[in-house]
């Protein structure tokens, strides 16, 4: 497995990236592939752990040591097979996943973890390049039909798995192209859209029917869904969190998702960039320090913003692990993304108190207060305390709200008579089954906003239960027990 002393011989290698000045001029991905020989060495850093925590940290249960080993042995085809056995779309996770596997990597205790995500990406890219990834339609059809609502990663994964089990799958997507957040949430510079098309193409050839511009419950009645033997709802958690403070109606305050989606459509050539949704020459403030916020930063810089500032209400995380977040748990560390490196002023422990409008109702500034977080009793969350006298006004013309999502949109659930859980997600049991027998749910719609890798995982697991529901048993794989607990 790997190379016995590989981790002592080789350092972790990074992909080289295009210089900032060049890359912000376009929306292309900007990392450069390492030579195969280097990738092999990176695979050779894997230590063949008795307990590969990475495999536990990965919500898909990717067989990481096994594909690392195959890469080290230069057997890319085998690596691909291993990778695909747990992950339908490594090309997405290989680009977009925050890689909880790497934070759980044992090597990470003492040095830089194995570059798992990068290896993953190049395994699948090699697969496409060599033509190893081909449509593999099922040999037999069960005669059962399944509708998948939503074509984000959860929906796609569920669809592909169910199709493999021989069911006829139809995927409904309300946008004009399938992919969900992959398509319209993630900027192109992180995921070029032909990557999605490439996969959709394979899936179509496998026999999956994609129906776009169909918004179930809006332009497609839920009754029609009853024609299907089973339903998998993967509509995502798209209810955006508002910021209801004085001045919130100012022009120039835009939800991040609207901003990003619009931009992707622009890049796709579907529309022109409107002034309203452009950051060009504006002072942009992105509120929310998460991944969406970061995407907004990258996009704003590509628009040619005058300045980009980022607010986060939480305190600045430490740069390394703290005793509160020991290995192998997910570290809430300071994360500096490639977008951050492209130019942003980041502020922590800061709360926006008011938007300031000009006479036309246009945004011209916002007001903030600094925050102090007071530690509570053990087991209690820290308490927020405003710092008196820390008021500050920030001139700006565009504010992007990247505050996350509060849950799925409720109309579909209501129309189908589905119960919600206490976090307003669609309620389902361990088998992803809702209170209506033939309706299942997976992904963000089920667990609330989360990672792509979780979405794929949920899609796969749900598919197995749907299959079981339809045929009484299922040969579809499951990731099995072993998810890493939370701190």
């Amino acid at each position, binding site marked *: *497995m790997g190379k*016995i*002393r590989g*981790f*002592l011989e080789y350092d972790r290698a990074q992909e080289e990236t295009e210089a900032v000045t060049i890359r912000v001029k376009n929306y292309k991905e900007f990392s450069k592939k390492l030579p195969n020989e280097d990738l092999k060495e990176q695979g050779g850093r894997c*230590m*063949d*752990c*008795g*307990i*590969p*925590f990475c*495999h*536990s*940290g990965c919500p898909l*249960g990717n*067989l990481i*040591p*096994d594909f690392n080993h195959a890469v080290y042995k230069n057997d890319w085809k085998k690596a691909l*097979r*291993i990778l*695909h*056995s747990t992950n339908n779309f490594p090309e997405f996770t290989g680009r977009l996943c925050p890689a909880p596997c790497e934070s*759980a990597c*044992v*090597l990470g*205790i*003492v040095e830089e973890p194995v570059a798992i995500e990068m290896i993953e990406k190049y395994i699948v890219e090699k697969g496409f390049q060599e033509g190893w990834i081909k449509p*593999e339609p*099922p*040999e*037999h059809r069960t005669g059962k039909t399944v509708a998948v609502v939503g074509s984000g990663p959860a929906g796609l994964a569920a669809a592909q*798995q169910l199709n*493999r*089990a*021989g069911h006829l799958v139809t995927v409904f997507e309300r946008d004009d192209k399938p992919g969900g957040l992959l398509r319209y949430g993630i900027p192109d510079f992180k995921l070029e859209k032909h990557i999605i098309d490439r996969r959709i193409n394979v899936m179509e050839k496998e026999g999956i029917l994609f129906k776009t511009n169909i918004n179930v419950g809006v332009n497609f009645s839920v009754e029609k869904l009853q024609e299907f033997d089973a339903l998998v709802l993967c509509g995502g958690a798209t209810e955006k969190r508002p910021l209801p403070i004085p001045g919130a109606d100012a022009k120039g305050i835009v939800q991040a998702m609207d901003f990003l989606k619009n931009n992707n459509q622009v890049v796709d050539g579907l529309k022109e960039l409107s002034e309203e949704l452009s950051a060009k020459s504006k002072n942009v403030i992105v509120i929310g320090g998460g991944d969406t916020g970061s995407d907004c930063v990258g996009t704003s810089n590509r628009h040619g913003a005058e300045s980009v500032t980022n607010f986060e209400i939480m305190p600045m995380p430490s740069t390394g692990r703290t*005793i*509160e977040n*020991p*290995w*192998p*748990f997910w570290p809430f560390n300071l994360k500096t993304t490639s977008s951050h490196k492209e130019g942003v002023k980041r502020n922590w422990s800061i709360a926006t108190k008011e938007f300031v409008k000009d006479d036309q109702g246009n945004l011209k500034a916002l007001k903030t207060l600094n925050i102090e977080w007071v530690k509570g009793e053990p*087991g209690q969350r820290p308490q927020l305390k405003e710092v008196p006298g820390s008021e500050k006004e920030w001139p700006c013309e565009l504010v992007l709200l990247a505050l996350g999502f509060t849950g799925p949109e409720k109309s579909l659930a209501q129309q189908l008579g589905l119960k919600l859980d206490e976090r307003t997600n669609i309620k389902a049991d361990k088998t992803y089954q809702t209170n209506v027998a033939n309706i299942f749910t997976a992904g963000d719609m089920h667990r609330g906003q989360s990672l792509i890798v979780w979405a794929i995982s949920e899609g796969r697991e749900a598919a197995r239960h749907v299959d079981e529901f339809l045929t009484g048993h*299922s*040969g*579809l*794989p*499951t*990731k*099995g*027990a*072993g998810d*890493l*607990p939370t*701190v």
Partner: protein
Amino acid sequence: MKIKQQGLYSPEFEHDNCGAGFICNLKGKRTNDIIHKAIDILIRLEHRGAVSADGKTGDGAGILIDIPHAFFKKVCDFELPDFKSYAVGMVFLPPAANQLNICKEIFEKEVKKQGLEVIGWRKVPIDSSCLGKVAASSEPITQQIFIGKTNDISEEIFNAKLFAARKITEHKIEESGFSESHYFYLPSLSTTTIIYKGLLMPQDINKYYLDLNEPEVVTKLALVHQRFSTNTFPSWELAQPFRYLCHNGEINTLRGNLSRMRAREELFKSEVFGENFKEILPIVSEGKSDSAAMDMVLESLLHTGRSLPEAMMMMVPEAWEKNPSMPGEKKAFYEYNACIMEPWDGPASIPFTDGNYIGALLDRNGLRPSRYTVTKDGYVIMSSETGVIDIKPENVALHGRLEPGKMFLVDMNEGRIIGDEELKESIVSKLPYRKWLDQNLLPLAEVPYTGNKTPVEKIDFVTRQQLFGYTQEDIDTIITPMASLGKEAIGSMGTDTPLAVLSERPQLLFNYFKQSFAQVTNPPLDGIREEIVTDISLCLGEDLNIFEIIPEQCRKLRIQNPVISNDDLDKIKYIKYPGFKSESISILYEAEKGLNGLEARLDEIINEITIAVDNGCNLIILSDRNVNPKLAPIPSLLACSFVHRMAKNHNRRSSFGIVIESAEPREPHHFALLFGYGASAINPYMVNEIIRKLVKNKEIDVEDSEEAVQNFNKAIGKGILKIMNKIGISTLNSYRAAQIFEIIGLHNKFVDKYFINTPTRIEGIGLYEIEKEIQKRFEKAFNPPESSTDLDLEIGGDYRWRRNSERHMFNPATIAKLQQAVKQNNYKSYEDYSKLVNEQSENLMTIRGMFKFKDLDPISIDEVEPWTEIVKRFKTGAMSLGAISQEAHETLAIAMNRINAKSNSGEGGEDPQRFNKDMDGNWRNSSIKQVASGRFGVSINYLSSATEIQIKMAQGAKPGEGGQLPGPKVSPYIAKIRNSTPYVGLISPPPHHDIYSIEDLAQLIFDLKNANRQARINVKLVSKVGIGTIAAGVAKAKGDVVLISGYDGGTGASPLTSLKHAGLPWELGLAEAQQTLLLNNLRSRIIVECDGQLKTGRDVAVACLLGAEEFGFSTAPLVATGCIMMRACHLNTCPVGIATQDPELRKNFKGTPEDVINFMYFVAQELRQIMADLGFRTLNEMVGQSQKLEMNKAIDHYKAQGIDLSKILYKPKIKKDKPLHNTEKQDHCLENVLDFKILKKAHPAIYRKEKMSLNFPINNMNRTTGAIISNEITKIHGEKGLPENTLTLNFKGSAGQSFGAFSTKGMTLNVEGNTNDYFGKGLSGATLSVSVPKLATFKSHENTIIGNVALYGAINGEAYINGIGGERFCVRNSGAKAVIEGIGDHGCEYMTGGIAVILGKIGRNFAAGMSGGIAYLYNPNDNVDVNNFNMELIKLEHPSIEDQKEFKGLIEKHYLYTQSKLAKNILDNWKENSGKFIKVMPIEYKKALQKLKEEKMKQDKSELKTA
């Protein structure tokens, strides 16, 4: 009286070992005095026996003498015919008068039936007053029967008739159903000899049997024996001697021997016995000891026309297979007889006699001491020790010892001793064995190839692999290393997957079986270093009547390595050779019919075999080839065992050999099982296919697929050897069908039908569930789910955790939570962790997981003793510095010392700087010091710094195996502590070379107690069936603590097969030990400790309720300090700096003492809560209260349903006031030790360093002389001891065992006389000498003067020995310099340092495993046999001038100390002699010395520069 089987205790696992000896008059002169001398021998060997809890009952002793004809003539109230024309039987009878009479009647009737006459009965006068309570309660009535001939029949026929009458009577009475039938027993029935024996102490033999004191009771010979039984209910009839022999040691292969014996009986025919032969059978009666069984078989062989020595040679052959120096005729004899009978494998020293001859023989391993002395006035005395009879030096003609595989015989008619060579030559030249072999024995290699080939299978490869349960891990981890390197795969840390019966994944039947292993009662062997005594070749074919000595007996197919390739199998399958016929029998069944189909097929198989055999077929191939969607395979092991068993029932087992053609076996364990249940050859065809594919795809680094297959077969061969060696068996011939396994999780009904006599103690599943598991795999293979992305084979996760695979106790969640808990001092996280480990109702892993606490009686937790008290009973496990890093090792020690708990040094010694507290208050001293087989760093200083000394008999992860610290891990620091050389690999032998039996363990305990009287002696055992009796033996051997380890404990390196398949869970071992100790009234004398994957307070609670009062943790504290179960300890690449010596990686260690303390605290807290719930205020109250446990009924698992834990929870019915825990201290009987007398006089030397010299007489009962003095000196002066020659002690006589053990610097111990075994054990700086008495006339270099295993683990010092030493001289010597005048086999074995100068002969296998040190051999006639060297690690060189100077100096000192004539001769002609030496130099050692020299030069240079 025997205790009945109850709970986990079963009497069949009792063991015994002992002292044995004989004395005879060379000229056949009869005297009564011989009896008293013989009894004196036993008295002088009393320390080799044992006493029951009543303090008075010995384990049995007895004496065999000539029939005192004149005496009987006088005392019998009936007429006796002439000597030898009548027989005397010594008869034990039931005490109940009515039953006594019936027994006598039955016997008389049978005697008459044989046409013999009962002359009369005589009541044997006895005096019972000397009996102990235990003995008295089972005392039989002893009478003598006198039987005469009616007709004038030959002596041979008379004996045969006596034999028949006795046998038939025994069987009849056994079947009678009398309540006291078990009393009936005939110690002897012979025309020449008579045996007086019983549950007696040696000195009471002639007090009890008054006859023996009668002056007219005279004899020319006396064979005596006393037992050391592992438990305290030995019985009268098992006292020795037996009718023809007595035995010191153990017969390891007994089960195989008995099973084969039973099979042979179907062919028995004999003219002597004629028609009624069947009535005599079985030859071996049930329930007797190994020695008794051996005696019974020997007895029957004597009726086959074989002489006594010939029969002994057949049963206990010397190691002939790999001896190039053995004469061809002798080899042929052994080879011929190997076709008839498998060896009865020792360790065994067997004195035997038929009244005409008396002799003795030692088995091939030579593991029992047998010393003899011939006196000028005509006596021969042989016994386990020398010096047992005082003989004036001038009367000694010869001191000798029995050598491995050798025999000697006293011919009292001729009045001389017949030596091994002469004796054997006369036997082996009687018949043309070589010619017979040439004409009949067919080696597989010579079987002509017919061109026929097994057809290619129709079902595709992947499907078949899935069907037989192959995973990618099997291929990568198990098969690949074997196919590419010819070596078994190594792993580390313990196994933590569920028992097969608790696993939810379909298991191969093999996985329900656990390998057994040797500990204490017999030694495991080292098949690598002592390869010369091992053999895995097998003969197969038809067996014939054992009574006929004819050429056809060896018409057999001989296979050198019975793991055979596809091509070899084809040869057998399509054999066309006169006398051989094979047939393939399919072991597939109709899957559709399920269980019924399987059972029906098994019956058909037996029918098919019966028909085939009747048609002359003698090679049966059981094949699972050609599976298809209709036919599923029967587990090969099930088929094999069933065929083996049923063919016996049909009286056809002897007619054929079983060949297995199966896709199933892939690990050594699988193969060992198949052989163990009767197979004679195995073709793993699926593995062959897999290897071919690996080669084809270039996935392994072997180019030729044939070579790769051979590599695999070779590796399996080695693996099997290792498995055999674990239990102490040397040859596959004796291992075959020996069934040395324990089952865990199969129910009794199933086992009785298919695996009879294999222990299975918690019930479990049966054929129904096994069939279900087959169906699961079958379904998956033939109806795979439609999902194109599935991998062909599952990844597998038995060795490395994977989701979707086997569950592991330590997994990401448990490790993450535990580390979080200790780092954050967060009890909440600990609770998460312990919940994950404990709550197994859904995810069953262990036996303890199936328990539930009951009868709660809650009290406030405040009433429970505080955690600080509880942790005093906690220990960390024995992990050596070497296995783990200095940082990790010291962290554990500091932590445990802070909370008054104990850490364990492990077996690698310890830096003396750690013995004292550091300035900062930290104390890095390990309070437990371990003594393992390697004895690394075991000096008097080390031992003196201990509060507890642990003797590691076995290790949970690899019981029965030694260890190896690879060169790269031997850093200069490690080397210093282990007294070895940096970068030279170190070997720990499988056995302690001073413990081959229970009485040896008692001796080592005594040695260590002498070395440190304050320390408790702890004996570490590994759970196995029969451990109860071993624990009882440990208690009787005066161990203070007995540790029962589970099979799942960790290791720094072990073959994977051992990790998983050897040993048993501690729950079984602990409960068995507790029950047996209680039954034997020994529990209060010993502390019981438990370890093996203890992880939580609940684990501790269960262990406590099952009987433990102290607890060991290893893996969990390591995890607390950062271990993440990398399982790379054996690779030196541990990334967290724990199990590595790499300086860079060691920097990664981040553990702290606080981590460990937090862990211990958490565990104690959890335990306290459970104690409070159950109502126990202290742990002592809680020990052994197994009624507080029950099986958790909520367990919903189809396989676990059938499990029955009641035997584990069984509580013997003992008196209420008897404690269930330790309450008293052992009496080590040190007060009579000679050292105390010496101490009284030696004060000036010890305290004031004044030079002084003292004289003392010494005898063999003065054992371990020097250790107490050495300990006293060390306590005052530490490691440096006293200045040279401060205290000189001169002894005259025969010193007892362990003379000079652990003697420190400044002591000089001289013996004029001789010494016994373990001379200079652990020598720590003293100078020892033994010289021939001045008045003696014999030549020193022809006489044995010290015993076996001298200078074992010696660290420093010198020894000068004016005579020959025994086997394993300088074994594991790391620094002593010694001069000796001749040695036995295995000289300088495992030596790592020091110098041995040998001025005389060396035995076989010299320098095996010798990785360091130098030996110089004097070779004046240039005739040293090169075959005597084990060349694996050494080179022979010419000594340099410097070398010559070195050994000349030593020879000069030798002369100075001993006045050796030999030394003088050599020195007198030094010019001539200086060139006549050979230098034995270990290769690695030489390189390392060179490397060190260079390093030093570099260092010197750089120092110069900086200066």
